């Protein structure tokens, strides 16, 4: 790592893959993929727990009465779109177009925020209208733990990306921060993939029983 790598990269300049141009970048890239492998086991364990306990609702509403697919469908669309916008951001990074990358990262953050807002609204409705809480049954504990872990990942990802955008706003893309943007976008895709499984396993399977 040197001062050379802190120099702003401009369009038309090599390298083609700024996120992997340095050894530090390569290490970050690989290490982050491994981290996501560990995260996969984490969520797999949570999914397994949820599947074991999803019918243990005691006196509370069962899943098919509780869930409304309209809201969850909108949330899914928003999050899928945010994955696409982060792809645009990385596309512009590869073209060394810093301003457009920042813009699309910003749009990703806005979409992520609206997803998180809707999720909080959803939880609020369950608690206050349906009496479905974290402590009401094993189903409640498992539901809020699985979906809540995902929500916490979204919140953490938003903090992370916002920090990146603000920190680098005035200095542009360089070989030091390109890997950081890249792994943040990987993280965001991972969050999206996990949500696809939640949408299927929790909500769709919950509706059809």
């Amino acid at each position, binding site marked *: *790592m*040197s*001062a050379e*790598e*802190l120099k702003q990269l401009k369009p038309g300049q090599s390298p083609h893959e700024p996120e992997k141009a340095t*050894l530090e970048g*390569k*290490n970050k890239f*690989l*290490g982050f993929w*491994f*981290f996501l*492998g*560990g*995260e996969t*086991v*984490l969520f797999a*364990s*949570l999914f*397994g*727990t949820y599947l*074991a*306990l999803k019918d*243990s*609702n*005691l006196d509370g509403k069962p899943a098919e009465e509780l869930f409304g697919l309209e809201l969850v469908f909108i949330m899914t669309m928003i999050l899928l779109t945010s994955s696409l916008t982060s792809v645009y951001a990385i596309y512009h990074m590869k073209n060394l177009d810093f301003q457009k990358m920042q813009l699309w990262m910003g749009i990703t953050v806005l979409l992520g925020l609206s997803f998180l807002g809707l999720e909080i609204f959803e939880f609020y409705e369950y608690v206050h209208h349906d009496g479905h809480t*974290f*402590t009401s*049954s*094993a*189903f*409640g*504990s*498992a539901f809020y*733990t699985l979906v809540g872990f995902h929500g916490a990942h979204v919140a953490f990802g938003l903090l*992370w990306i916002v*920090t*990146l955008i603000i*920190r680098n706003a005035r200095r542009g893309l360089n070989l*030091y921060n390109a890997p950081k943007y890249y792994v943040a976008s990987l993280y965001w895709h991972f969050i999206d993939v996990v949500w696809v499984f939640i949408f299927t396993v929790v909500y769709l399977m919950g509706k059809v029983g």
Partner: protein
Amino acid sequence: MSTAYAQKNGFFAGLWDYLTTVDHKKIAILYLIAGGFFFLVGGIEAMLIRIQLIQPDNEFVSAGLYNQLLTMHGTTMIFLAAMPLIFTLMNIAVPLQIGARDVAFPFLNSLGFWLFFFGGVLLNCSWFMGGAPDAGWTAYAPLSTTSPGHGVDFYVMGLQISGAGTLIGGINFLVTIINMRAPGMTYMRMPLFTWSSLVTSVLILFAFPALTVGLFLMMFDRLFGANFFDPSMGGNHVIWEHLFWIFGHPEVYILVLPLFGLFSDIISTFSKKRLFGYSAMVFATVLIGFLGFMVWAHHMFTTGLGPVANSIFAIATMAIAVPTGIKIFNWLFTMWGGSIRMTVPMLWTVAFIPSFTLGGFGGVMLAAAAADYQYHDTYFVVAHFHYVIVGGVVFGLFAGLTYWWPKMFGTMLNEKMGKLAFWPFFVGFHLTFFIQHFLGLMGMPRRYWKFQPDQGLEIGNLVSTLGAFLMAIGTIIFLINVVMTTMKGEKVSGDPWDARTLEWSIPSPPPFYNFTQTPLVRGLDALWVEKRHGNGKMTPAEPLGDIHMPNNSFIPFMMSLGLFIAGFGFIYQVDDSSFLILAIAGMAITLLSMFVRSVKDDLGYHIHKEDLEKGAGSE
């Protein structure tokens, strides 16, 4: 961006250096000190257990304290002694064996250590704050979820924090081994210790998140009123058993695989022969790693999963004997016809082979699901796992520490004292645990505080306790050896064992940048190849140039300290919700440290070529 490596003197400068270090060789020493300390704590707990069982109807410790000692002995030895001491060996050896200047993530390496350390301290704080965890190291629900007091809460928080540290360490070594190998160091030229560290790191990566989830669920149940393990609220405690053993079974391979690799290196070094069946050894290591994940339910044969599940897991378990057998025979064939030097590391290694094999026999017996209904939760199980964990892991740690001691400290442990430590430990080990097989077959249950007179269990328990004293004597002699060696401080050369692998091609202890020039690897046992076919020195793969080094950082310490504080907050908010302030403050310290790390560029510094020529940093 300066060439700052000026040495500051004085105790506090030294302390500050160790609190902030990102050098893998210094982190190895930190792991050694902390892990060694916890090993002694766990050993004292073991001695108290054995003294309690020296005679029938003994009243040496109370029943409640006995449960705490038993739980903390297991937890401490696995998580706070064996794991960190293995990280000592990995930190000292892996980067040097592959010809790397550093690990992939020096900052994370330091963070991993401090997380482990503060997790361990938090766990042991329970002794002074109303009682240690008392539900066994497996913390089965509902015993653990209904255990009164805060003991189990300390278990949950302490292991969660130190587990995160282990996961970080695993990822670090994975990337280091894959990305940072010297030119010519292909996968099939890596020393077996590096290979087994790679496989172990994969196991850590996929096993620890299951523990993380299990501990979270336990935390939610105990501290926040969730119902995962409460059948009256729809919960199911078999979930804990599954999650725990999905982690717990690979964990025993995480412990023993690096030492399998180490034994391979030691045997080939001290037999002056290339390792017999190198590629078969690599294959066996990978296969053991894979099968290690497929067998967790053999801990649950009596839980009631049904005969189909039991049969599948029984057969998968027995299959592990095949790659393990490959290893045992390859070690023997490596020694066959070699010119063997019985140094202390070799002595531990040779003692390991029959000891571990005996443990393996017990394992095959336990793997027979039908027979397991007889052995389950008896001393037979205790005998079995101590045979593999002490006979494999602890013997390996003694061997490895003696083997790499010169590389870590530049001095040599005394050979005579080393042998003097070995014999009581070795004899004591077999006295303690061999007889426990028979105690188990005679029906003595594990975890029992007392046994009754006139059941024929007296002599067995007495012998077992006497053996434990012999092991303690061996450990004390080892410690005396360490103290004497440190005080004498005789310097040794870079290659005191006449060894074969890359770490011995540089001075002991190595300069902080490891290799002045990255070496060119021309075959398996790279240094040996040069001794046979070259001038005995590694050929550099690059011209002398500036070396980039990472800066020290205090942030890992702060991040871990924050979680430590938050741990207390989470535990005590059950009694008094104002403790939530402590939890929030702790999390704030951690998140703020992460934030500082994110926004402050840490570019490290360079050692310039001219200074390298003058021999900077090589002390």
